[in-house]
């Protein structure tokens, strides 16, 4: 069964550094998402992306965050200047159309030192 893949599985970065989290959604999917889960808390929506543009974003997704689909397969989340509070598990998800469930990757654990 096709999967959403995320790399790396764990990223350790110094505060203030830029980080890029990478995702390869399922190949025929058209809608892409990033969520995060701070340790011990619930899964929170960050941003959704469709037709090469952001379709929705949360208040968490401020100017330090950006997303890109640089080619036909990758979907990236960039954090320009990381903060300690950005430490979390980041999940990528995708779906192919409305009314269908989102499929999640295994996540990238981001640790900011």
């Amino acid at each position: 069964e096709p999967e959403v893949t995320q790399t790396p599985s764990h990223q350790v970065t110094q505060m203030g550094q830029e980080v890029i989290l990478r995702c390869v959604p399922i190949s025929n999917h058209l809608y892409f998402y990033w969520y995060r889960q701070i340790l011990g808390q619930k899964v929170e929506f960050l941003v959704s992306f469709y037709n090469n543009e952001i379709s929705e974003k949360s208040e968490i997704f401020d100017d330090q965050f950006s997303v890109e689909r640089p080619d036909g397969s990758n979907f990236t989340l960039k954090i320009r200047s990381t903060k300690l509070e950005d430490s979390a598990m980041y999940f990528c998800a995708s779906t192919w159309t409305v009314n269908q469930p989102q499929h999640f990757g295994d996540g990238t654990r981001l640790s900011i030192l």
Partner: protein
Amino acid sequence: AQSVTQLDSQVPVFEEAPVELRCNYSSSVSVYLFWYVQYPNQGLQLLLKYLSGSTLVKSINGFEAEFNKSQTSFHLRKPSVHISDTAEYFCAVIPTGTASKLTFGTGTRLQVTL
């Protein structure tokens, strides 16, 4: 806007006992409902979905959930749990007819012991 409440943060249960994990939601529009499961050190896997039709939905591994519109609930049940069911379970909703964001509950940790 939508919100999801999972009242039980942890549910300890013995193997082969029945279990119910509760989920209630609030929404001003119609929603689809999902249960996702997160095993240790893994991502979120879709367990069950309610989109339309029969209000009772079942998974291949024995879980079932029933959509109750009047009570705005989507409780997850299993008549006999296994050690391998130990995981975090998340209830989530999305407005119907959209590919919008999922709104998650805080999760329930199911701990199955011998």
